[in-house]
Structures are given as C-alpha cells and as structure tokens.
C-alpha cells in the first residue's frame, strides 16, 4: 500500500491556479508557507498582511484571513494586528522592494521593537510586477529596465543584504536567508520558515526569512537558467545561512 508523501496543502485555496509566470518561485514559497501553516495547525488562527507587488497575490492563494497594506507598510499593519490581538498568529509575505526599499523603515523598526511576528521576504533582485526595474537588491552589473547598462555604483549605489541587516536588530529572534534554487535548498527553506513560525509561537520576538527566488520573465531567462543565476550569481552575494538565532546563540 503506497503512502501519500505529497499533497496540496490544506492552507492553499481549493482549485486555484497561481497567476504567476511559468517557473516563478513565488509559487514554491507560498506552498512552503502553506505547508508550515498546516503542520503547525495555524490556518485557523492566522492573519496575514500583504503588501504591493506580486507578493500581494498571496491573499488569492492562501486560505487565511488577510488584510492588504499600502506599499511597504505590511509590517506596520502586522504590528497593529498583533498588538490588538496578541493571541493571533501574524505574518507578512513581501517582496524585496516592499520590505527593503519603501518599507525598510517599517521592517527595521518592527525588528527593533521585537514585534512577535514573522516576515517572509522574497528576494528576486527586481521589481517583478511593474516589469523588471532596479530594486534594492539588484546585483551590481545586473541589467534591468531602469539600469539598461547594468547596475553601477556611480548611479545606483549598492544592493542591501537584508537578512544580515535584520540580524543586527536587537529584537530579532531569528533571521535566515534561504534559496529555492534546488530541491535540497527548498527543503531547507521550509525548515527555516517553520522555525521562524515556531519562534513566534514561542513568543521570542521578530522572526525573518529571506528567500532567494527567481523572476524568469523579467530576467529574460528560462526557469532552468534562472535557477542557475540564483546559484551562480545571487548566492555569492546573498549567502544563504542563519544570521541570527536567539536559541542557538547565532
């Protein structure tokens, strides 16, 4: 008798199809979030705040209570939700532009206050929904629609290392960077998300996972080549790892 080892998570809305482009890792990331919600039994107690960008679509796919935030303000709304209802499981799902550019103030201060919430940030080094412009994590040399000859320091300055930045905040309980470039790393990514969720359940403070992800459409790459780029280019600058873990003294 065969045992089922994979299913569509219960926390995913029944019979939906993602609106993401073919090969986009948002789909994997949302599934991992859903699997963690399932495994920790959080679906019926969760409230999410989603911001602007492709990440906002979360509320069309995840079967949990959600409120939409203006661009960059998801962690302010999540703070409001958690302070009003501390017994609820509260998390945000944001892109890098949302989390680390327009919303960097909200992100940093939520971490500094040690808000007992979890933030998931998809880093695909570009503004995907608006057509692939330069964002806060665009790599040096990367060509985007607003860096047509590649990101140079003279005009654009440097990309931000988000997980390291959040790890520096005293209120952060957990900050990790993971990648979705391979199945092995996808499994590690899920463990990181689960740990971040568990840290909120333990009331340890702000927990954060940065997920290196693809945008094949705006990178003008096949999904396969896009994963090669994550591995060969992104992971050298944005090195996966655990940058803060209050329980492991990292």
């Amino acid at each position, binding site marked *: 008798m065969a045992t089922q080892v994979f299913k569509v998570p219960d926390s995913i809305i029944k019979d939906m199809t993602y609106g993401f482009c073919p090969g986009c890792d948002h789909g994997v990331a949302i599934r991992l979030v859903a699997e963690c919600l399932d495994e920790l039994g959080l*679906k*019926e*107690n*969760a*409230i999410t*705040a989603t911001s602007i960008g492709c990440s*906002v679509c979360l*509320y069309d796919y995840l*079967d*949990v*209570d*959600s*409120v*939409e*935030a*203006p661009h*960059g*303000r998801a962690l*302010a*709304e*999540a*703070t*409001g*939700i*958690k*302070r*009003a*209802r501390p017994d*609820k*499981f509260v998390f945000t799902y944001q892109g890098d532009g949302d989390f680390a550019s327009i919303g960097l*103030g*909200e992100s*940093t*201060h939520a971490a500094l*206050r040690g808000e007992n919430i979890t933030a998931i940030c998809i880093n695909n080094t570009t503004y995907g929904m608006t057509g692939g412009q330069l964002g806060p994590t665009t790599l040096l040399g990367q060509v985007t629609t607003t860096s047509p000859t590649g990101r140079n320091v003279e005009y654009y300055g440097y990309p931000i290392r988000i997980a390291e930045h959040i790890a520096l905040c005293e209120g952060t309980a957990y900050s990790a960077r993971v990648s979705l470039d391979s199945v092995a790393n996808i499994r590690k990514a899920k463990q990181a998300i689960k740990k971040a969720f568990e840290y909120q359940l333990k009331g340890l403070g702000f927990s954060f996972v940065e997920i290196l992800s693809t945008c094949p459409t705006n990178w003008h790459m096949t999904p396969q080549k896009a994963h090669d780029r994550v591995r060969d280019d992104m992971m050298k600058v944005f090195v996966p790892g655990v940058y803060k873990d209050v329980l492991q003294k990292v």
Partner: protein
Amino acid sequence: MTLTATKPEGKVLIKGNYAIANAAVIAGCECYFGYPITPQSEIGEFMSGKMQELKRAYVSSESELASINMVIGACSTGAKAMTSSSSCAVSLMQEALSYATAEELPVVLVSVMRGGPGLGNIYPSQGDYNQATIGGGNGDYKLIVLAPGNVQECIDLTYKAFYLAHKYKNPTMVLADGLLGQMMEPVTFGDYPYPEVDDSAWALTGAKGRGRRVIRSYAPSADDQCVFLNKLYAKYALIEEKEVMYDEYMTEDADLIVASFGSMSRNVKSAVKIAREKGLKVGAFRPITISPFPNKRLKELSCSAKKFLVTEINMGQMVRDVRLAVNGKVPVEFYGKGVGSMIDVEDLVDKIESLIEV
C-alpha cells in the same frame, strides 16, 4: 499631566489634547499608535502612560506612515484604534486614509491643526480644512470629519468619532486646532454614550469555523470597482442623511449669517451677540460635521438670509463649501487670516457692520 482616575467625577479643568486622549480611553480605545508633533504631542504622552497602565496597546511608531498603518492593522481585527497628529504629518497619512476608506475600516484619527503650508509653524490654524474634507489620497473617497469648537466638544466628538467610525466602517477624523489642543476649559467626561458596534461579520479573527476573510482595496475588474464605488457612495449619502450636525445662533431672522467652524466660532458668537445689541440682524452658523457638510441647512438659510460671511483662520477653504451650498443665491463674503490667534471680536463686529450697512 496625569488624570489619576480614568473617569474623573464632575467638572475638571483640562487641556484639549488631554481631553481628547482621556475621552479616547473612556471610549474603549484598545490601541494607540503615534509619532510626536506639536501642537498635539500631549495626546501621545498621555496615552503612553495610560494605555500601559490599563494594559492596552501603545506603540511609539517610527513615522506617521507607520502609525496610521498600525491603526489599519488593528482596525482590521475590529479593535478600536487611533492615532493623532498634526497638519504636515497628516499629509503623510493620506495614502493610508485612501486605503482605509476602500477597505472600509473604522480608523480614528485626531488632527490638531498648525500653520502651513510645508513645515509652517506651531501657531493655531484652520488651514487643513481641505486636507480633512477633500484629502490628498487617491480615488473617490470621503472621511467623516468632526470639528469641535471647545474642549467639551473635543471629548464629545472623540466619543462620537469612535462610534461613527465603527457604525459606518469609515475612517473618521476629529479636526481640532492648536488653540483647542492647548487651551484649558472645565469639562465633564461621563460615560461613553454610544452602543458598541458588532464587528463579528467582518473582523479578521482567524478563519476558525468560517471561510477566510480578505480585507482589500485591490479590484481587478473595472465593473466590480464601479459596483463597489456605488456602494461606498450610497454609504456616504446615508451618513449625510443621518449624521450631519451643526450649531445655529440667532439665524431665524438674520439678514447676515456668519459661518465658521472649530475654535473660530467662539469669537463669531461673541461678535454676533454684540452686533445684535447694536440692533443688527445677524446670526451665526457652525458646521460640526464638516464632512458631510450641512449643505441642506445652508441652502434653506440662503432663502431667508441676504448675505453670508465666512470667517476662517486660513486663506479661504470652508468658504468654497458654503458657496457650493448656497449655489449663487446670495453673496458669500470671506474674512480670514492665514494663521495665528482667532480674529478679534471687535474686528468681526466691524466687518459685520460694514456688510450690513452696504
């Protein structure tokens, strides 16, 4: 300043800002999020102590952008939540107010006006009438805006703001000014006089035993958005029908009606009294809800009065609404000054005399 008892007995002498803050506490405000700005900083200072004492939520936020969005988050769970701010900082909240109206959330915002534009100064002003009633957010939306004229009304309208925000699921603003915020008057608090509004049909509580709920402003289809906007505007029509408030003084036989709002109305009333003693047929009109605006009543008054004078501590903002309400039936004059203390009673009387003589 500390009120040791949350609900002091009888009359107390209190500053407008503290009155607003304590009224919010009595109204059951569960969450306060704020960023300091003169002339309303006492509200946040009072709340920082009182909310912690009562084990309610308080966050000293990183910006006004964060404050108002924290209020949105708290309100999405049905909580009574508020922020307070002033003029140039309320500018930063316009985006979120547009979202909050589209998401139909009971946000309560207290705006204590100071001089503008830009940084302006910290003197009293009424220069944010347009900011409050028209707003700078995107799209078709309206706030409910209540304008107190004295410290007692700062209390009464703070109570009302929480009630109306939750009753209509619409962001509601109490629009005071630096004079009201800083002046002391004897007041009574009493109990929160409104019923609690049931939010169980829409609040986010986690999807236990029911389908999940999404509070969103994003509408993928133009047709759906038209349906939503029609519903929103039907709500605004209902609010205008049910909730318009105004104050009138000796308008029955008045040839000239002096219209003003907020603290400016205090001197207007005194000037009307003096002008009446001089035998001038003059009355005063004061909108208490400046959004929705008492259009209907002003239209009625334009049938009996021969002229209107609008006085404001700004360069002429509410005068536009009065002109729209009167719709050309009688002349509407403006008498104002940009910023600072209220126009003197004597100057008002002179102005009234000059208009009635003509």
